[in-house]
């Protein structure tokens, strides 16, 4: 196992244990900047960790980034690991990013669905959902991104426990979702919520469960446009952007619809690479370039959040 985050191999995929070890290394190397919070336990009892990046203050305005809510989207957890290291490298070095972290905290949840992620390594690489059992069904798991209390159970999710988009028995039934909901509610000062998925190269904002435009549509569209331009500037990777329902399809019970309805204006979902060659099986050689280009988009959104307090 890596003895430091400098020898950690960022251009390969890692197991849950290796990612959790990485988190501990990063905290140990940067005790003034990074701490590890446990926000709950998964259905199968695994700890759910969030890395907090803070330069002081108390309950500062914050930015939330999560990866891996759909466990088979391995490029997202791998990108999350790279983001974590990038934050510690750029603070104090990059002026724009230093300004962000001098005024805001960043919370990064790298493995949002630990049970599903462990299952992709042990039994089924293409597992997407949680691993919760549904009474009365032999099918397992809930789509954690259909389980939030925003249009829950409406069209755009399935009521069949065997479906990949099964919404679960009730909103927040999945402890992996409830843990984040409780954290966001307890913190109360999160200003941007960025949830990272793959694949199809999209940057999306609310809503997914209804056609009504968010009241901040123009601003969100502008921010998305700038973020996509920044992302594409590195390797020319092309993204589309827009609201979930107008850009792809109706999806109910999604995380950013709930966070936007809580008043977190800058709520976005990323769909990272690929365009249609590898799908969820993106080669490890594309981890770093994907993370690098995505970081430019994240920076754009974080800067906008910093410069437009609300």
């Amino acid at each position, binding site marked *: 196992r890596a003895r430091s985050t400098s020898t950690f191999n960022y251009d*390969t*995929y890692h197991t849950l244990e290796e990612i959790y070890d990485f988190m501990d290394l990063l905290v140990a190397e940067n005790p003034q900047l990074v701490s590890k919070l446990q926000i709950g336990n998964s259905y199968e009892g695994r700890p759910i960790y969030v890395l907090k990046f803070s330069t002081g203050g108390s309950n500062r305005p914050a930015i939330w980034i999560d990866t891996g809510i759909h466990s088979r989207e391995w490029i997202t957890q791998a990108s999350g690991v790279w983001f974590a290291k990038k934050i510690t490298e750029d603070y104090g070095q990059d002026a724009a990013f230093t300004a962000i972290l001098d005024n805001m905290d960043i919370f990064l949840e790298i493995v949002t669905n630990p049970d599903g992620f462990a299952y992709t390594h042990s039994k*089924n*690489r*293409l597992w997407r959902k949680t691993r919760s059992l549904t009474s009365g069904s032999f099918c397992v798991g809930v789509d954690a991104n259909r389980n939030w209390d925003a249009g829950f159970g409406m069209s755009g999710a399935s009521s069949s426990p065997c479906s990949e988009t099964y919404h679960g028995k009730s909103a927040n039934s999945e402890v992996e979702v409830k843990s984040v909901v409780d954290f966001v509610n307890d913190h109360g000062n999160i200003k941007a919520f960025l949830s990272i998925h793959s694949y199809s190269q999209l940057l999306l904002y609310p809503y997914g469960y209804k056609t009504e435009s968010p009241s901040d549509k123009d601003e969100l569209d502008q921010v998305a446009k700038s973020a996509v331009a920044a992302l594409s500037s590195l390797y020319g990777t092309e993204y589309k952007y827009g609201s979930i329902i107008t850009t*792809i*399809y109706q999806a109910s019970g999604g995380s950013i619809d709930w966070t936007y309805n809580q008043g977190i204006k800058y709520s976005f979902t990323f769909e990272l690479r690929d365009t249609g060659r590898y*799908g969820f099986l993106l*080669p*490890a050689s594309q981890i770093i370039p994907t993370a690098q280009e995505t970081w430019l988009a994240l920076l754009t959104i974080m800067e906008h959040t910093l410069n437009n307090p609300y």
Partner: protein
Amino acid sequence: KEDFVGHQVLRISVADEAQVQTVTELEDLEHLQLDFWRGPARPGFPIDVRVPFSSIQAVKVFLEAHGIRYRIMIEDVQSLLDEEQEQMLASQS
């Protein structure tokens, strides 16, 4: 560990709403055990679906019978998974 030998991922190009609807109906045929990597959305928005070996012939015949274009995005899912595993083991060593 789940084995995906012979599974293919098809990229389906739907030309109109009727074709979107037709592919959506496929989604409900549970015996085909289709796994939509990118679900049916709208014309011009590609649909990616993993098809188990046992269902490939039926799905291709169905698409061709309905004049719905597709291409094979991944010839054999298991071979990509094997490559991924080898890469991880190589990097660990």
